[in-house]
Structure formats: structure tokens, C-alpha cells
């Protein structure tokens, strides 16, 4: 029987906390940019102008067809070289955090775009018609009438996607960025207590996600009441 030894954990808490901070940073930035850019994409996809529709659709379909791991690697191995050439950023700069933020933000936008698009389409067409009939421009109608309702309808789904994002940030492991799980792995590897640290990290994620999901369920009940 394996002999558990949890003694590494208390001493490692500062390291783990720093990792958790990275996790939260990436999550929050990706959610914020994801929703903002996702909204723009969703609106573009529903636009009557083909020159807006096609690139948006291509973007969303592309990012939804490739693994997140690939996108993270893209932004770490390929894109920085472009940036270095065009912006002259020195190759010494540690771009792991920046590339992770960019990767997650742009990736999640595609998923948010689909959620928001469904949300916009779930608002009855009569609402838009009524707004236009009152003299609002299409842009005003979208901003003042349609989008607010769409977001209210889709809030639980947006939050659920955020929880998924929170879990997905663990993949920054592939570029060596120390998020919560990366930190746990490092500690476990260093102290030879990988089993305990992996299980500990799993438990933390489990409890956090469970609590967050419960909150979202509560919210959903309030919204549909």
C-alpha cells in the first residue's frame, strides 16, 4: 500500500498560491476578452454583410476545430517570432504569460461567440422590429435592446464556459508556465511526492468547480423564476 505523505503541501502553499494567481489571471483575462471579442464575432456572424459574416464564421470554425493545446503552442512557438520580427521585441523577454493570455483569449472568443450568437437568436425577432420601428438605428437596437436580453438569457451558459476555461488553464503546462497545477506538479516532482500533489490539485479544482457550478445553478433558478 502506498504510504501517503502530505507534509510537502503546507510548506509549498506560497508557491501554490502564486500558481493559483496565474490561473485566475489567465481565466479572468480570457473571460473578459472572450466575451468582448466573442460578442463582436457573434454580431458579425449574424450580419447581413457577407464580408463580415464569412471571416467571422471562418475564425469561429477554425478555433473550434483545433485542440487548445495546439493554439497554446501556436502562440508560444510561432506567433512570438512574428512579433519579434515586426515589433523588434527582444528574444530575451519571457513571453509565456503574454502568449498564454493571447492564446486563451482568442480561443475562448470562438466558443463565447457561439453561445452569444445563440443568445441573440433566442431573443424574439419582434424585439428588434419594435426597436427599429421606434427609430433606433440597428446598432442602437442591438446595444440597447437585443444584447441585454441575450446576455440575461445566456448568463448561466457564459458562466459555465468560464468554469470550463478555469479548468482548461491547466494546459499552460505545455509551455512551462506555472499555473496552479503547474506549480503543484513542480512541487510534487521536486519533493518526490507527485501522487499527493496531483491528488491535492485535483481536489482543489473539484471543490472550486463544484462550488462555482452550484452558484451558477442557483443563479439560473433566479433568472428563470
Amino acid at each position, binding site marked *: 500500500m502506498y504510504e501517503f505523505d502530505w507534509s510537502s503541501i503546507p510548506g509549498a502553499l506560497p508557491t501554490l498560491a502564486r500558481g493559483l494567481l496565474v490561473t485566475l489571471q489567465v481565466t479572468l483575462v480570457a473571460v473578459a476578452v472572450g466575451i468582448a471579442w466573442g460578442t463582436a464575432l457573434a454580431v458579425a456572424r449574424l450580419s447581413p454583410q457577407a464580408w463580415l459574416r464569412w471571416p467571422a464564421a471562418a475564425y469561429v470554425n477554425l478555433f473550434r*476545430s483545433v*485542440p487548445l493545446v495546439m493554439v497554446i503552442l501556436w502562440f508560444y512557438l*510561432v506567433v512570438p517570432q512574428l512579433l519579434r520580427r515586426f515589433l523588434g521585441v527582444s528574444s530575451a523577454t519571457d513571453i509565456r504569460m503574454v502568449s498564454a493570455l493571447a492564446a486563451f483569449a482568442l480561443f475562448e472568443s470562438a466558443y463565447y461567440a457561439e453561445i452569444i450568437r445563440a443568445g441573440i437568436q433566442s431573443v424574439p425577432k419582434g424585439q428588434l422590429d419594435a426597436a427599429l420601428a421606434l427609430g433606433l438605428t440597428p446598432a442602437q437596437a442591438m446595444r440597447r435592446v437585443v444584447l441585454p436580453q441575450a446576455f440575461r438569457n445566456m448568463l448561466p451558459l457564459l458562466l459555465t464556459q468560464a468554469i470550463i476555461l478555469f479548468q482548461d488553464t491547466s494546459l499552460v*503546462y*505545455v509551455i512551462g508556465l506555472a499555473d496552479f497545477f503547474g506549480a503543484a506538479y513542480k512541487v510534487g516532482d521536486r519533493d518526490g511526492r507527485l*501522487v499527493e500533489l496531483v491528488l491535492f490539485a*485535483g481536489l482543489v479544482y*473539484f471543490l472550486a468547480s463544484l462550488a462555482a*457550478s452550484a452558484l451558477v445553478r442557483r443563479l439560473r433558478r433566479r433568472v428563470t423564476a
Partner: protein
Amino acid sequence: MGTAWNWGVFLQETPSGGATYLGWLLTGLGWTVGLSLAAWAVALLLGTALGVLRTVPGRLRPGLAAAYVEAFRNVPLLVQLFAWYFVLPELLPRAWGDAIKRSDPLLQQFLAAWLCLSLFTAARVCEQVRAGLGALPPGQLQAALALGLTRFQAYRRVLLPMALRLVVPPLTSEFLNVFKNSAVASTIGLVELSRQSQQLVDYTAQAYEAFIAVTLLYLLVNVAVMLLMRRVEARARVPGFIGAR
């Protein structure tokens, strides 16, 4: 990095000899597809069984199935993979654990990835099947029982055939997800497609070409799956049936 495009790099031989870089890519593709199909097969069977369990009367069986779903849904896929790969061999009885650790590394990686992906995806399939069963009119089960069918027969002959047809679109999504999630296996060294892309960047200097090629291969897999599922959806169509009442 070379500033000139060099698509010919794929036809170059690898330093270890005996293969071209293109060959590496195709090997990676093979592992990705193999792992994904193997995991999907298990996930479909297990997920359907769990979905059924969530809808039977009583509290124990639905409760167990619900607990399963929560367990696999609230932990990141990467953490689950590491648990199967690093933690499980340690927790098994000594003899088994050692046997695993001594076996072929590729086998270890594949088994851990397969287990992880199967069980993770099964939780998602469970929820889809549950939704499908829930969308059926309650009279269907009653009519089946009224004819003297047992619950098992009713699920097998009446409820599941319709429920599964109803959820072909979301199941297609999950099927596509399996291929994407398989990329996580690169973190434990399995030579699937995304790992091969990293290898190519390391060995050649042609990062762009490597990544574009790999991205195209993932897109290709997507298209193939979508075409397949479109065929499945067409065959599963029930004449005159528009949707659940």
C-alpha cells in the same frame, strides 16, 4: 528560424533515419485517430449505460451515475490524465504497479490516455443520453410496459433507439471533442499529432510549415467526422417524425 518557406522539409529524412518528417506527421495522425476512436467506443457504451442509470426509478442508481458525472466533470482533463499516468500505478498493489511501470512506455502512455479520455467523455455522453431520454414522451415507456415488456426490454427496444436518434447532433460535438482532447496526451509523451508538431519545430527550423500542416490535419479530421456523422444522421432519420412532442 529560416526566413524562406520550405515545404519540402516534409520530404526530408529525419535525423534518426528511416522516415521522413511527413512520416512523423502521419504517425502522429495515426495515434490521434486510434486513441480517439478507441476512447469514443468506450465512452459511447459506458456513457449510454450511465445515461440510462440516471433515468431509472430509485435513488441509489441515479445517485451513483450523477456522482460519476460530477467527479469527471469538475476536474481538468490534464489533472485526470496525470492521475491515471502517475498516480494510479502507485496506488495499485505493489506487483501490479511495478508491472505497469516496467512495461513499454508507449503502452503506458496509450493506456493512461485511453482510460482518461474514455472515462472523461463517458460523463459527457451520459448527460446527452439523459437529455435524450428525458425528451421522450412519458407515454412511450408506459405503452411499452403496458405491452408486457420489462423495463430493460423497453429501454433497449423503444426508448434508447429514439433517444439516441434525438441526440445525434450533440453526440457529434462530443465525438469531435474527443479528437481535440486527445492532444492532452502529448503532455505524457504520447506521439500523437500535436506532439509531433512540437517535434518538428524542434528538429527542423520550419515552425510555420509544421504548424500549418498539423492544423490542416486536425481540420481534415474534423471534416471527416462531420461527413460521417451526417451519414449517420441521415440513416437514423425516422420517417414522419419531426421531434419529441
